[in-house]
Every structure is written in C-alpha cells, then in structure tokens.
C-alpha cells in the first residue's frame, strides 16, 4: 500500500499525478474463504478490516452487488454522534465515535472528521425537559453532553428563526461537542484500502443468490460470479438483509423504508454545527464545499426502490424553512434516497441468525453511517470468535422474544 502524506503528494506532483496506485485491488472470487461478508458498504468493509487487524483473519472476501459504498454509505447526511439515551446504545455509538476519532490516522486516509458539535434543538418547555433528561443520561453514561441555553444555541446557529411569530422558536437543547460530520465516501474507501492492503478480497458486481448450509451450519454461497465455500458468513447489507436471511428460512424484525436527503447550492459559511430540530424533525449541516446537507424523517411507505416520495420532501423542506427562513432563497442541487432497514425499537440487530456460522449486522435504520466503525468491529468479533462482544450482546435478535427492547425512539426521540 502506498503511504499517503504531504511528501508523497509532492513527489507525485513531479510526475503529474499519473503514477498513483489504485487504492484497493479489484479482486476475483476464489473458491474458498475463511469468512465471507455480504455487503460492501461501510459496515461490510469495516468488518473485513477489523477481522484482519484485530483477529488476524485475512482469507476473507467482501461481496458487493454493485460498487463499494454505493448504497446507504453514499446516501446519508454524514453526521456522527453518540447522543443516545440507554447505556447499551451509548456504549455502542460511543465506541463508534471513539474509533472515528482515530480513524484518519489509523487508516492513513483522511476521512475529514469535523467535530463541529451537534445541537438537538427544542422549542417547548416540555421538549427542554426531555433534552435535560437525555443530557443527564449521557453524562451518567460517561459521554460528553450538556444542556444548552437559547442564547448559546442562537450563537451556534445565527440564522435560525428568532422572529416574534416563529412557530419553532429555539429554546435551547442538547449539545454534544464531539459530534460532527465525516466524509462518507472516504470512510468506505479508507476501510477498503486498508483491508485490501492486508490481503482481503473486495469483489464488486457480485450478488449472492443462494446460501448453502450443511447439517445446520453455513457451507457457502452461490453468487453471480460463481460458488464460494465458507463456514463463516457475515451479512451487512442494510435493506437487502431480510431477503438474504430468508434464504436460510429466517425472518427479521425489519421493514424497509426510504430515507431522503437533499443538498443545496453552495453558499458561504453560515452554519458551523449539525442541527436537529425536534419540532420539525429536519436536520441540517453545511458541507466543506458550502452546500447545506438536509435530512428529515422516513417516507412512510415500505419500499426497496431508492427514490423517495414527494410529500416527505415537502415536509422536510418546509421544516427547514421554518427553522431558517433565509434558506428559502437557495436552490436544491440534488435529492436522493436510501433504503433503510427499520427495527421497531430503533436499535440495530447484531448477532447470530439461522444456521451456525451466520451473523448479521443490520437494522441500523436511519443511523447506520455513524455506526460504521462499531458495526464492523462487533461483527468481526462475532465472525472470529463465534461469541458476542459485551457491547453487541444486548442487540441480539433474542431481545424481541425476551421483551428486552432498547427503544431509542422513546429514549432519545430518534424519529426512525
């Protein structure tokens, strides 16, 4: 692997940048691997990386139906944060945030982590009480989080609607200092490059069509690029996960919906934080290029089509304009949607499913990007040891039969 540095940049400038190596190898499938991961998004690629790095497993393939990072990894709003309510969730999402904090250096790939902070803004006294409760919970769980006053919030988002008739006048909210954004493509590419350098095969245009089992254990997969034998299978395929698990006769507590996002034309710096408004459900940040990156709630129509519907678009944008009337002058440049796998308690499903040797990392719903390092770290632990890591154990599928749900929709007001 070519090391990236200011020096290598200068050296390649002498040859007009024509001699850079590909960041990762385009591999062809081999007949047999120690472990196979289905899904070449952030979660699948980070799983491969941590399998090699933490567990020394290098005969591993990542199978991707399309191109790596082309699913939800390339379709989110790039926010990273750990401002959750339950101890189990905070342990999970903060593991992720801590891994993100060291990731650019670890991968020698700039993921452009920008810890500009995040404000979850309230506009009623009742919402402020809920914010206080979450801030207290975050502090009890050992994560940086605090209540922010209206004056301080207005300083963070100076263009927010302060007029007398404002319907959602900001009263303050929860602040997390370590939250922020990261470059989503760079996360996928950085993990792919580092995993490939350790010998892992990243195989694109390779769709899994069948999962083989032998006496109750995984034996291999049939793909559009041939049959591959393996005894350990990890699935990190977001909305495609239910279909893959049904190949071995299992069902998951997942409905698929679209989550839309939008980008405006670029403008000068006007918002130096990630802002989520509880009242409108709309969230917004400004990219380094100056575009506003906007997201909101789910389309409430189950779907596998990556399109997004118009009523939700209207809801999200009208929410944005309630918060920032000045943004009405901006044009939207792009709109897109990703298929998100939504679980009733808004927490992921991580653990064994179906035959022996098969594990899933799914159900992240609208919050998968921020969880990429932790999802991969924990799925790698499961694949290598066959056992749960302490952080992933509460998120096992068995929590539904045991009635031990981790309801973050109720806990931290996550609208998914």
């Amino acid at each position: 692997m070519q090391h990236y540095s200011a020096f290598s940049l200068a050296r390649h400038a002498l040859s007009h940048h024509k001699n850079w190596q590909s960041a990762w190898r385009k591999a062809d499938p081999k007949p047999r691997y120690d472990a196979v991961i289905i899904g070449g998004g952030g979660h699948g690629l980070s799983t491969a990386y941590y399998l090699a790095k933490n567990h020394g497993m290098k005969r591993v393939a990542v199978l991707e139906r399309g191109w790596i990072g082309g699913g939800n990894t390339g379709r989110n709003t790039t926010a990273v944060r750990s401002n959750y309510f339950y101890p189990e969730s905070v342990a999970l999402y903060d593991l992720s945030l801590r891994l993100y904090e060291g990731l650019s250096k670890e991968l020698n790939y700039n993921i452009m982590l920008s810890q500009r902070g995040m404000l979850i803004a309230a506009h009623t006294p009742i919402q402020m009480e809920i914010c206080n409760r979450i801030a207290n919970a975050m502090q009890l769980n050992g994560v940086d989080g605090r209540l922010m006053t209206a004056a301080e919030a207005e300083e963070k988002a100076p263009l927010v609607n302060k007029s007398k008739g404002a319907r959602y006048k900001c009263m303050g909210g929860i602040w997390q200092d370590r939250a922020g954004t990261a470059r989503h493509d760079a996360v996928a590419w950085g993990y792919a490059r580092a995993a490939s350098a350790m010998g892992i095969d990243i195989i694109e245009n390779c769709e899994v069509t069948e999962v083989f089992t032998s006496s109750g254990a995984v034996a291999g997969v049939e793909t559009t690029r041939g049959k591959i034998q393996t005894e350990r299978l990890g699935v990190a395929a977001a909305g495609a996960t239910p279909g893959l698990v049904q190949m071995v006769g299992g069902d998951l507590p997942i409905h698929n919906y679209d989550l839309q996002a939008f980008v405006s034309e670029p403008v000068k710096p006007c918002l130096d934080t990630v802002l989520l408004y509880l009242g409108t459900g709309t969230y917004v940040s400004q990219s380094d290029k100056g575009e506003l990156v906007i997201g909101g709630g789910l389309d409430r129509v189950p779907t596998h089509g990556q399109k997004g519907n118009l009523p939700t678009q209207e809801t999200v944008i009208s929410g944005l304009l309630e918060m920032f009337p000045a943004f009405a002058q901006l044009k939207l440049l792009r709109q897109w949607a990703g298929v998100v796998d939504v679980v009733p308690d808004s927490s992921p499903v991580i653990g064994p499913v179906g035959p022996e040797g098969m594990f899933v990392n799914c159900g992240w719903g609208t919050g998968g990007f921020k969880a990429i390092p932790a999802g991969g770290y924990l799925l790698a632990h499961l694949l290598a040891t066959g056992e749960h890591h302490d952080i992933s154990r509460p998120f096992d599928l068995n929590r539904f039969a045991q009635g031990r749900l981790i309801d973050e929709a109720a806990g931290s007001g996550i609208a998914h």
Partner: protein
Amino acid sequence: MQQFPCPFCGLRNETEFHFAFEAGHPRPEPAKDVSDAEWAKYLYLHKAPKGKSSEIWLHLTCHEYFILHRDTVTREVLSCDVLPGAEA
C-alpha cells in the same frame, strides 16, 4: 403525490394512508398455548418483500383497514381488497 385506492372511498392522496403491517400474519391462538418465540414472531418478524407485496393499510380519514397489493420496488399499486368478511 401518489394516489392510493381505498375500497370504500376510492383514490385518495397517499398522505391519507398509513401502513399497518404485512398481510397474511394471523395472530397465534389460543394465547395460553403460544410460546414467547411464536408471539415475538407474530409481533415483530416481517418479510419486507422485494417486488409484489400484500399489506394491511389504514385509511386515516375513514378509519377503515384494508388490503393493498403493491410493488415495493416500482411503487405501483396493483389492486386493493376489503379485509376477509368485510363488504365495500
């Protein structure tokens, strides 16, 4: 704005409708013989089909539940039905 058909009211805007659950998911009976796993399966486990799907929807304005046959990839509505035993 897409329009969905209600068997009682005809074509209406999609915002008037709410997805309830996948069709063909009968409640296991009698309750005292149902295991935790069976009950959890009934409550939580779904198929999330890709392509043709039959779903129970609620028309929020008339408050009737009905069956909607759709394609989950193209979003095309194929047809709608009243629930078994009901009359339109």
